[in-house]
C-alpha cells in the first residue's frame, strides 16, 4: 500500500480503537496502526501466503471470503472497519458496505476511479481501460465492480450513507488542486470516511 494512503487512513483512526480491515493483505496497514495508534486490529484475508505474513507480524487475522458475508462480525463492537482497494472485487459491494456500517459506526472505503481521464481515453479508443492503477486485462482482473467517483457517491446517497470526509488522490498518491476541483476526472482513487 502506498505510504500516502495509509497516512490518510491513519488520520481517521482513533487512538486505542478496535479496527477490522477487510482484505488486509499482508497486514501492513494494521501493523502501522498497531504501532502508531495502539489499536486492537483484526484483518480479514483469503490468501494463505498473506495470512502467514500477518501472523508473522503478530497481526491477528481471520481467513474468510468476504463475499460469503461478514455479518458475524457485527457483535464484536468494532469502532472502525476498513476496506482498502477491495470493494470493487466483491460480488455485492453495496451489501458489504451496508454490513460494514453495522459492524462499526464508521468505515473507511477506498474506491478506484474508472472516471479517471486515462481510463476515459482508453474507453474512447474502444478498449477496456488498462492503467498503472488498474493494470489487469478485462479477462483476468479481480475488479468485477468498477465504478466512478460519481457512481460511488450516488450509491452512498441512495443508501443514506453519510460521507463524513473524503480525500481524492492523484497518480502520485497525493492531493492536487486538479483532483480536488474535478475528482471524477482527475482522481485515481477516492478515500472515504463513511457513517450510517
Amino acid at each position, binding site marked *: 500500500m502506498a505510504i500516502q494512503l495509509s497516512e490518510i487512513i491513519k488520520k481517521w483512526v482513533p487512538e486505542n480503537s*478496535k479496527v477490522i480491515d477487510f482484505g488486509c493483505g499482508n497486514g501492513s496497514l494494521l501493523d502501522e496502526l498497531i504501532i502508531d495508534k495502539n489499536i*486492537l486490529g*483484526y484483518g480479514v484475508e483469503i490468501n*494463505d*501466503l498473506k*495470512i*502467514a505474513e*500477518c*501472523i*508473522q*507480524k*503478530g497481526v*491477528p*487475522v*481471520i*481467513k474468510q471470503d468476504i463475499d460469503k458475508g461478514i455479518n*458475524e*462480525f457485527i*457483535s*464484536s*463492537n468494532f469502532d472502525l472497519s476498513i476496506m482498502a482497494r477491495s470493494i470493487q472485487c466483491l460480488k455485492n459491494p453495496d451489501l458489504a458496505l451496508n454490513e460494514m456500517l453495522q459492524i462499526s459506526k464508521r468505515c473507511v472505503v477506498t474506491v478506484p476511479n474508472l472516471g479517471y481521464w486515462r481510463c476515459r481515453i482508453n474507453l474512447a479508443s474502444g478498449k477496456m481501460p488498462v492503467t498503472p492503477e488498474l493494470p489487469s486485462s478485462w479477462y483476468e482482473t479481480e475488479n468485477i465492480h468498477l465504478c466512478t467517483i460519481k457512481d460511488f457517491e450516488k450509491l452512498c446517497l441512495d443508501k443514506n450513507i453519510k460521507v463524513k470526509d473524503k480525500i481524492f488522490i492523484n497518480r502520485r498518491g497525493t492531493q492536487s488542486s486538479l483532483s480536488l476541483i474535478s475528482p471524477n476526472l482527475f482522481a485515481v482513487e477516492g478515500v472515504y470516511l463513511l457513517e450510517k
Partner: protein
Amino acid sequence: MNLKTELLNFKEGITLESGERLDSFDLQIETYGEINKEGSNAILICHAFSGNHHAAGQSNDFGIGWWDQIIGPNKAIDTEKYFVVCCNNLGGCAGSTGPTSINPTTQKVYGKTFPIVSVDDWVNSQKMLMDRLNIDFWHLVAGGSLGGMQALQWSISYPEKVRKAGIFAAAAKSSTQNIAMNEVARESIRKDKNFYGGDYHEHNALPKNGIKTARMLGHITYLSEELMDMRFGRKFQDEASKVDESVNFEVENYLQYKGEKFSEFFDANSYILMTKAMDDYDAGKDKSLEEKLRDIKTEFLIIGFYSDWLYPPERGKEIQIAAMKNNIKSSFVVLDGEHGHDSFLFDSEPYSKLIKNFIES
C-alpha cells in the same frame, strides 16, 4: 533433540471436577530441548483422545511420536529453541495413572472404578506438572482435537500462565454428532462379551473386539471422504495381504488392520473415560464461551481444516468470534489439509509456517 522420558509422582493427589479424589497419581511425561536461562521458552503439548506423552522422536515402546512432523529440530515447534513438554493424560493407558493402574487403597486394578476425569482435570494436573518443573509460564500451549480443547481450557483456567494457545481442529464443545459417534464406539465396547461391565481384569479377559470396532468407526470419522476415495477407492485387497477371508475391499482391510493394532494396546475403560471427557467438555458451561473468555490475555491461533467433518472449521470460528468480542488477539485460519480431522497431525507448508510464525511473532 534431547528426548527425556520420566514418570513423576504427585503424592499430594488431586481433587477432580467430579469431587472425587485421587490421593496420589503419576504422570508419564516426555520433554524435548532445554529450558533457557530466563525460563521463557517452555511449550506444553496436549494430546488428543488416543495420544500419549510420546509426541516426537523415536521410542522403543511407542515408535515415532504422534506429532513428530511438527515437533523437532528446525520443525514448526523447534526443539533447538524451545523446551517442549508433553504428558500422558490422567486416565490414559500409556504410563500415567489410569484405569489400568493399581488403586493404592484396594491394591487392585482400578478398572471401572477409576473416577471420571475431565478436560479441566487434565489442565489442573498439567498445572501441577508445570509447578513441579519450575516453569513460570508457557510460551505456548498447543494441541489438536481434544488437545486443542485443553489448550483453550488452559487459557481459561490459568490465563496468566499462557502467552499463546494453539487450538487446532478443535471446538469449544463437542457437537451432538461427536457425542453420537462416541456413544456408538462405547456401545461396541460395552457389548463385547469380554467387557464384563468394565471388570475384565478380574476375569482375565480383554474386550478387544469392542475396542477394535470402536476404533474402526473412529478412523472413518478421522478421514475425509475425498481422502478415502483417493487412497482406497474401490480397489480390492490382494489375497496375500488380507487380514481375514471376509475382506474384499482395501478400505475394509485397512480398518480391520488399524482396529486390530489399536485393540492390542489401548485399554477399554480408558477409551470410555477419554471419550466421555471429550463429550462432556463445554468451555462455556454454566455461562457462555464469551463470558468465560473475559479478561484473557492469551493470544490464540485457531486452525481448522476444510476436509474435517468431525470438528469442522465452523467450530473453530465460534471460538474466534467469542475471542474477538473479548478483545483477545486471536487469529483463525482454515487450511486445505487433505487428511480430514487427522490433518492436524501432518506437516504441510502453510500449516507449519503458521505455527512457526505464531510462536515467533
